[in-house]
């Protein structure tokens, strides 16, 4: 058997399980439809920097599709990996002449990477269809907006994966993941209120470690002559938060790999 063949076998079976016809097609349809349906290029006051307008437009496209992506990732991670553990089908997969880390990579490639690539591909296409000149003139703003907004989603996926492996129950891990998503979303309002009450940006800085989109938002708003200047992080600071959030996410995935490869007994 060729070296890559077992990997492809597991990948193909995971893809088949995660995206049965017509799941992928419906997702593509919904991503495109909801992206453009909720797009809002708004009335920006004169003097608004175009980066801020691009970020606001991208954020308007992200709303519902990002929620669909979170649900999709939770479903894929918990039913693809969690349920394999729950039902014991993981034993069949472990029979393949393949290292455990390669098995998990194949599973994650299908569960996370395909979904994220589909999401980003359709989002950026939709943005380009709507405002081609804005996108081509501000690629950095578009790139940073998406990188910053996808980060907490991946963080939740990483946490859910870890819980799936530890709990060995897909449904329980799904609920935990869902709760994490709501907590991360609600934290933004809580942090906003508390920061202003305490007149300190420390909570925002802390929150930006898991959701750097807030730091990016304040960075671009601070460029506008009309925006509030409660917190004005510079671009390098924003990049630091983005890097930190991806480092935390990577750490969670590494923990999952370590647990799956060394601690998980089946």
């Amino acid at each position, binding site marked *: 058997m060729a070296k890559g063949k077992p990997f*492809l076998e597991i990948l*193909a079976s995971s893809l088949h399980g995660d*995206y049965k*016809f*017509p799941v*992928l*097609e*419906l997702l*593509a*349809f*919904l*991503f*495109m*439809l909801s992206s*453009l*349906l909720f*797009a*809002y*290029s*708004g*009335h*920006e006051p*004169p003097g*608004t920097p*175009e980066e801020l*307008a691009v970020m606001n*437009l991208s954020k308007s496209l992200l709303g519902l599709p990002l929620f669909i992506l979170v649900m999709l990732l939770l479903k894929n991670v918990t039913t693809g990996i969690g349920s394999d553990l729950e039902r014991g089908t993981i034993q069949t997969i472990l029979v393949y002449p393949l290292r455990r880390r390669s098995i998990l990579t194949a599973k994650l490639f299908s569960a996370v990477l395909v979904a994220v690539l*589909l999401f980003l591909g*359709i989002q950026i*296409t939709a943005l380009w*269809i*709507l*405002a*081609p*000149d*804005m996108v081509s*003139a501000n690629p950095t703003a578009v790139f940073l907006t998406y990188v910053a907004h996808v980060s907490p989603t991946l963080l939740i996926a990483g946490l859910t994966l870890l819980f799936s492996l530890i709990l060995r129950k897909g449904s329980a891990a799904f609920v935990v993941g869902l709760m994490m998503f709501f907590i991360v979303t609600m934290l933004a309002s809580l942090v906003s209120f508390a920061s202003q009450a305490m007149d300190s940006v420390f909570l925002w800085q802390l929150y930006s470690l898991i959701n750097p989109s807030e730091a990016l938002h304040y960075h671009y708003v601070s460029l506008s002559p009309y925006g509030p200047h409660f917190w004005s992080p510079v671009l390098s600071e924003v990049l630091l938060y983005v890097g930190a959030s991806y480092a935390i996410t990577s750490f969670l995935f590494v923990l999952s790999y370590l647990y799956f490869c060394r601690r998980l007994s089946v």
Partner: protein
Amino acid sequence: MSKRWITLLSRTGTVLMAAGLALVLLSMIPPRKVDQSDFFGAAILEPETFIIDQTYLFEPLTPQNGLYMNIQVNSSTTLYVLNLGKEYVYHWILARFPEIQLSSALNASLLEEFLSAHPDSAARREDLVGETVMQHVPSRLMNVTVVFSNRSMQTASVSYRGKLLNFIVPSERALNPAKFVVPIGFALTIPWLISAKKRMVAKPLGNVVQASGAMPQKSRKAEAQ
């Protein structure tokens, strides 16, 4: 071609078709009028003069907010949609010709001078004859100035009505990529359609073989296992 490649190509094709169909659906949704955005105007243009529309357009247009105008002229006139704000155009003119009265028609050579100094400023240029309907939706945030220019030797009369339209996505912008994406998606599914048809043709034959008592090779193998 292996079955796996056919599946991969066909799924890519169906995804492209699904995304394309969403675009087609969105392109069919008509625009709505922006509240209180109606404007109208009329002017007599002496030969070799131009006027700047003095009415509504003070807010920048967006990729979803476009300008719709119905214009009537009695003589050949040129319409320019400049992607610069009125204030900028006025400042530029006044900086060079402080004595000029901006409320009246200006010499057409001044417009030529402005356009040669700002070669990318004309987002749209249209020669108007009789009644014309014009729709302009920019692809970025844009201040807009509408200019009517009469380069002929006859006096021209211009009257216009306009409004701002709000789009989910301008239909042309949604349809143009869909025109490519849907056929490409369909082309990618053709190998799968062919193999599906072959399977459908082969299936009844297999049934006939089974009915006659002979077992298909695959079943015999499975039985041996």
